[in-house]
């Protein structure tokens, strides 16, 4: 059995007990990557040499007692929108094809301090704009359960790498569902924390008021452990929150007696695949059998979340992506007449179609004459959505529903109709608008053998509620390894 089929925490224990060396673990991960990348394409950059060198350093720090935490020596993959000092960071875009950051993102730094060994950088939708990982300049990632299907997105590379067992765990980022939806499609577990919990310093910004970094792993225990390690108050991120109650692993308790779980009726209407519905409701039943109080309710406003999101996210993107202009880093066009021509040609050649589409829409909704009608209207809608969740959380500890309306679509089916693709994010997007924490974990498979994800949403700062409910549900089933893992 490969060491990569263990959870991160299990591997960490073996390393700590000296049953396995860090180098052995890292070598197995690198060999798995080498063997599987031709099929799955989860990575943009693989740092074999750096990882092996780092493995020796970490081993020394474990041996001399400096590193004692649960993740010491465990190999990790990082989404390619997080800066890693000296290591290529492309955002899966041509415009950053040669960018090597001069500093490391705070969340990644926190992992390094915990003894993580970085294997490389994972593929994603270009600038995290997409739901399939097909908008990457470096080619699509394939779903480890069935290579004809997408892994979801935008953290598709991170989720596929975990499912294919090319790494022990990964970091992703979630602006509208980009951790939870691909976790659902790939049969792994991912958490989007409360906004402000994990520092965004060094995360290449897409929609700054929505972006959060979070863990992607095989189970809830790993996710809680990783989240505990990456959470920090950071003065370098002006929206970072100095919050309490971050000992997330203390919520890994198999007890949901008396926990109030609400199921929004609006999440189970038109557009939801019947097999997904069945699997998610069966999961609710399991929690009810364990003593949770489960009831249906009307959340309301669900259909307004996507239009509000696209206005806000695109507006912020149009501003955030203004920095890519061929002056300070990345791609610069070869032929140009003057400065403005250089900006325009660089950006037009450097960005892909989906990124341009969103920058155009964002520029439009912020332009004079449309700002009130679109941008402010979207921010008002966001306030109403937040209020709907506040009302719901006055009655429930956890909201339960699907992570996505379907299982993973086939490659090539989504990009031709953007609005249809955007609708796939209907259950995840409002969570970002309201700043809430959410987790997606596997709860079954459809008749084609593709995983279904269960989403649990908590009130702001109440990660522990969703971790507890997710952990309790997880005890009712075994982790299923994908066909691309080594465990058959």
């Amino acid at each position: 059995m490969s060491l990569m089929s263990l959870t991160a925490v299990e591997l960490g224990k073996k390393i700590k007990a000296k049953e396995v060396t860090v180098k052995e673990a890292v070598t197995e991960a690198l060999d798995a990557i080498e063997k599987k990348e031709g099929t799955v394409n989860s990575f943009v950059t693989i740092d074999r040499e750096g990882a092996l060198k780092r493995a020796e350093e970490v081993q020394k720090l474990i041996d001399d007692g400096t590193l004692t935490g649960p993740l010491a020596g465990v190999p990790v993959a990082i989404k390619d929108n997080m800066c890693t000092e000296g290591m290529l960071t492309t955002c899966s875009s041509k415009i950053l094809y040669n960018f090597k950051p001069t500093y490391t993102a705070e969340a990644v730094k926190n992992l390094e301090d915990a003894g993580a060994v970085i294997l490389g950088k994972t593929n994603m939708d270009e600038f995290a704009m997409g739901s399939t990982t097909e908008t990457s300049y470096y080619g699509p990632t394939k779903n480890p359960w069935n290579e004809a299907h997408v892994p979801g997105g935008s953290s598709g590379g991170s989720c596929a790498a975990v499912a294919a067992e090319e790494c022990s765990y990964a970091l992703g980022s979630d602006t509208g569902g980009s951790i939870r939806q691909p976790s659902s499609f790939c049969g792994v577990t991912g958490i989007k924390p409360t906004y402000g919990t994990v520092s965004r310093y060094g995360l290449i910004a897409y929609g700054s008021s929505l972006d959060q970094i979070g863990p992607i792993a095989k189970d809830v225990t790993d996710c809680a452990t990783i989240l505990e390690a990456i959470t920090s108050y950071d003065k370098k991120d002006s929206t970072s929150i100095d919050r309490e109650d971050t000992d997330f692993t203390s919520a890994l308790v198999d007890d949901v007696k008396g926990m109030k779980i609400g199921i929004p009726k609006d999440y189970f209407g038109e557009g939801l695949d019947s097999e997904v519905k069945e699997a998610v409701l069966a999961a609710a039943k399991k929690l009810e059998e364990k003593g949770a109080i489960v009831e249906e309710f009307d959340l309301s406003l669900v259909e307004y979340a996507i239009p509000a999101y696209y206005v806000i996210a695109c507006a912020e993107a149009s501003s955030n992506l203004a920095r890519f202009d061929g002056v300070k880093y990345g791609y610069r066009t070869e032929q140009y007449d003057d400065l403005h021509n250089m900006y325009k040609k660089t950006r037009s050649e450097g960005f892909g179609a989906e990124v341009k589409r969103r920058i155009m829409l964002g520029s439009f909704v912020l332009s004079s004459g449309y700002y009130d009608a679109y941008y402010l209207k979207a921010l008002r809608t966001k306030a109403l959505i937040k209020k709907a969740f506040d009302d719901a959380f006055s009655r429930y500890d956890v909201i339960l529903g699907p992570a996505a309306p379907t299982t993973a679509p086939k490659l090539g089916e989504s990009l031709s109709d953007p609005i249809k693709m955007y609708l796939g994010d209907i259950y995840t997007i409002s969570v970002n608008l309201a700043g809430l924490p959410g987790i997606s974990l596997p709860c079954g498979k459809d008749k084609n053998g593709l995983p279904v994800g269960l989403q649990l949403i908590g009130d702001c700062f109440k990660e522990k509620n969703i971790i507890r409910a997710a952990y309790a549900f997880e005890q009712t089933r075994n982790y299923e390894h994908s066909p691309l893992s080594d465990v058959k």
Partner: protein
Amino acid sequence: MANIISDETIEYVGILAKLELNEEEKERAKKDMGEMLDYIDKLNELDTAGIEPMSHVFPVQNVFREDVVTNGDGSEETLRNAPEEKDGGFKVPKTIG
């Protein structure tokens, strides 16, 4: 209500976005943007009169600090990423005629 995006609007947005679209991309952008705006117009069904626009879900304040350099001089490393550099600065085409 169908949104028709004119050539002038696409030109104007292209200037704001600093993007140069070819004819085919312009036509595609007109269609895409029109469809997206039709979809976004759904928000008009909601009565938001008297609702404060919410830019952040938590109250945020400016974070101030003394203007003291704490991370050292990284100019050399930073310039290594520049497409072109000259005399310790980013080199760009002539901006003043």
